[in-house]
């Protein structure tokens, strides 16, 4: 019998509003503790919630983007439980009538096929604050800045059958919400979080008991956490054990999940409609207006990148996944007039630097215009690709346009035929042994051997000789000796 993994995901996307879902306090990340927690967020006696129109608009944007049923009447409910970072003693959420109903999203599998993943629902709720356990020895510190930040909880059907599919789905949702501009997608800051419901069964049998793993804050960890959890469950079942339905926490340092003891006790959330809030009622016109104003969605953009720029499906997929990245790429292409070259540079040198410096493309020290300008100089043979990397390095560290850097550092490519010919002649004269080998070789092997001479010329020219010219000249001269 073959084991099958069944995965459903709950994604919590913090909506990119200016203010909290029910108060006028800022949602900006990283402020001093409790400086963005107003009377409503602290649940002072007598305070009341008023719903943020941006949170509604963003939720409806998401719903229309996944082709979902939009709740014309949606209702906030209270989920009651005690926790120190939950100031009211209940979380305002939507259980019975969510804003977004059933929808779907397609993911691309490694074999090139697509698979449709069902989205059960997406509902609005408020985030809790943060409990800081490390700062004090016998106390926990509570920071309520995050309390009341709007969340869209996106619940999938248990449609995924592998960690890879799960990651593809999460990436797809991530690309969608960032493209829509409704979530900044920053997983390290907790703006985009994922809980994984995992169970295993013999193929074709009933669903087994599942575990819910929380606290996963990167795509890589999602994959690792699921894989680890699947192995753990199969081990237990093969030893004749049973899976406990429970909440588990992913520990990235140890790369393992562990049971959350504090949540073990059976919860009874006593949901009921929040009497401080009234039903949210929206009409078709509201929904249509939002639908029409939707920005280009990642899937549409990916196809466009393939059609318009003749990019490979892979490149188009990467470049369309994150809107700032897509925008950057398109600007570079406009300036450089070479999509393939632009794609290579954005996904290569630029991404490498961004990764190394842990920088989002929105904060890239090299702008799209700067990079485009640099690529223009490759195209017009002012510099070679290798020199361009040096120019890029200088741009990253010190700023400036490609032309300024090329000028200041004297990196302009040598295209003077006389100067190049002189170096070619010197190299031939100084490397008699290799010249002999070349002339002795079969003609069809000579092509490969020319690389050595090229290298010598480029070295002697300090990399500035135009490689195309060097190659032509060198071949001509060597062939003349044969």
């Amino acid at each position, binding site marked *: 019998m073959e084991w099958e993994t069944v995965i459903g995901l709950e994604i919590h996307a913090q909506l990119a509003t200016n203010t909290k879902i029910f108060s006028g306090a800022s949602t900006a990340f990283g402020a001093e503790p409790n400086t963005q927690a107003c009377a409503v967020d602290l649940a002072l*006696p007598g305070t*009341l919630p008023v719903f943020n129109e941006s949170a509604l608009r963003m939720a409806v944007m998401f719903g229309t983007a996944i082709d979902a049923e939009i709740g014309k009447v949606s209702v906030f409910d209270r989920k009651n439980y005690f926790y120190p970072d939950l100031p009211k003693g209940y979380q305002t959420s939507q259980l019975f009538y969510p804003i977004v109903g059933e929808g779907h999203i397609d993911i691309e599998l490694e074999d090139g096929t697509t698979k449709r993943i069902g989205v059960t629902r997406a509902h609005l709720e408020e985030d809790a604050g943060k409990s800081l356990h490390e700062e004090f020895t016998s106390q926990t510190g509570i920071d309520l800045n995050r309390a009341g930040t709007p969340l869209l909880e996106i619940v999938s059907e248990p449609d995924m059958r592998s960690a890879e599919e799960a990651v593809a789905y999460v990436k797809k949702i991530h690309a969608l919400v960032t493209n829509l501009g409704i979530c900044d997608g920053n997983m390290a800051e907790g703006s985009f979080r994922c809980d994984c419901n995992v169970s295993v069964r013999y193929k074709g049998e009933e669903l087994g008991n599942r575990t819910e793993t929380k606290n996963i804050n990167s795509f890589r960890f999602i994959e690792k956490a699921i894989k680890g959890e699947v192995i753990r469950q199969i081990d237990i079942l093969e030893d004749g054990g049973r899976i406990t339905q429970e909440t588990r926490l992913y520990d990235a340092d140890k790369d393992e999940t562990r049971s959350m003891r504090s949540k073990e006790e059976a919860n009874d959330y*006593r949901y*009921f409609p929040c009497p401080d809030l009234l039903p949210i009622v929206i009409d078709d016109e509201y929904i249509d207006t939002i639908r029409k104003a939707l920005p280009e969605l990642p899937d549409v953009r990916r196809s466009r990148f393939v059609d318009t720029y003749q990019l490979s499906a892979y490149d188009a997929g990467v470049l369309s996944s994150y809107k700032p990245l897509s925008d950057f790429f398109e600007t570079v292409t406009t300036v450089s007039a070479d999509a393939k070259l632009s794609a290579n540079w954005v996904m290569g040198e630029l991404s490498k630097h961004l990764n190394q410096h842990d920088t989002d493309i929105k904060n890239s020290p090299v702008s799209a215009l700067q990079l485009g300008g640099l690529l223009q100089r490759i195209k017009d043979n002012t510099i070679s690709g290798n020199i361009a990397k040096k120019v890029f390095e200088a741009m990253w560290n010190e700023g400036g346009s490609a032309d300024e850097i090329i000028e200041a550092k004297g990196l302009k490519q040598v295209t003077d035929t006389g100067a190049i010919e002189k170096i070619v002649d010197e190299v031939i004269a100084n490397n008699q042994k290799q010249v002999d080998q070349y002339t002795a070789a079969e003609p069809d092997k000579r092509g490969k051997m020319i690389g050595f001479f090229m290298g010598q010329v480029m070295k002697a020219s300090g990399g500035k000789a135009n490689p195309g010219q060097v190659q032509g000249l060198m071949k001509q001269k060597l062939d003349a000796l044969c």
Partner: protein
Amino acid sequence: MLNKTLAELAKGLDQGEFSSVELTQAYLERIKREDSKYNSFITVTEELALTQATAADETRAAGNATSMTGLPIAHKDIFCTQGVRTSAGSKMLDNFVSPYDATVIRQFNAAGAVTLGKTNMDEFAMGSSNESSFYGPSRNPWNTDHVPGGSSGGSAAAIAAGLAPAATGTDTGGSIRQPAAFCNLTGLKPTYGRVSRYGMIAYASSLDQGGPMAQTAEDAAMMMNVMAGLDPLDSTSADRQVPDYTAKLDAPLTGLKIGLPKEFLSANLNPEMATLIHAAVKEYEALGATVTEVSLPNTALSVPAYYIIAPAEASSNLSRFDGVRYGYRCEDPKNLEDMYKRTRGEGFGTEVKRRIMVGTYALSEGFYDAYYKKAQQIRRLIQEDFVRVLSEVDVIMGPTTPTPAFKLGEKTSDPVEMYMEDIFTLSLNLAGLPGMSIPCGMNNGLPVGLQIIGNYFAEEKLLNVAHKFQQATDWHTLKPAGL
């Protein structure tokens, strides 16, 4: 200058007979001298009152006075008042100095009113007798062996004892009307959403409503002009034009259609009270009204429905009192759970704990449909009763309470008996309708209240109906002996 109505005091201030500072000082002195008998105030805000009175006199001197400028009033201790302890009658908030003002407080401050202090109340407004207050019961000035009613008992006792000319109250199941009836006052529970709930410590959010308690309908109208209106901070506040509630007080009642629900005048009612209610209705007939018997068949169900809905909402509303951000925290908690349980166990009184438990039980898994959903369905039936009747008559009249003020301790041992006290008032809150209680006679030396119920947002009509009665009768002018 004491023992006058707000309208009379406003006139006195206007004509320079006395200043707001003089008036305020007179009340403060009387509170100091007399309140030990009634325990109607939890906190007297002497300094604040004199500051506000001084400012009011300056405003008047500058010619910018409104009809409320310089008038001293008391606020139920459920309205958050910045810089002043706001306790809701609970040990839980005994140390809570509110960092902000409730909208109602802000409105009265903006109108130039003077805050004499914060009045006693049943803990978190849960009670019908004021006996659940952490600060001890308030007493009825008509007979201090009797309760003043609840939960706004302190406000009622203060006005009846002449310690404040008027006060704010809140009404979740009768908490303005019942103490008004017990203390011979005029109390108005407005339509749900007419007065902002922001800063009014929540008991049951879908039922709570603030309103005026006063000596006359005219005074209540003056207060409504300050309190009513849309508040952007309260999602449930009504976006609807606010009339000048004093404008039509004198409109004739010719042709007024009064409905008398047979369920309000039946078995539960003390016969002497029934006589007084019928006499009051006769008076209205003399004023040109016509009377028909109507039926509100689901009245009896309002008690069980209310005692599910209110505790369910309360159990959730009161979860914020956890000892983390404000209020009482138990000594030396062993761990988090110990902190929660002892803070809440020690901070809340018995009746509050009882209602939290009822509500918790009603919402818990497996019981939601049988209790909470069922109660909401009954709630609709009760509302439909009213909507049907109010399409046929202009106002509904009946007693506010089944009996006059009962004795302290008489009903504390059996919560169910206490809950039955609210049988005539609860249904209004469930339906969200406005209602008033006005004095209509005396029974064994204790006041009796006539309840007048109107359609949604018909406060202006109710005040008119009440005012005309008070023009024709003098029950509302009766004062306890010695005043």
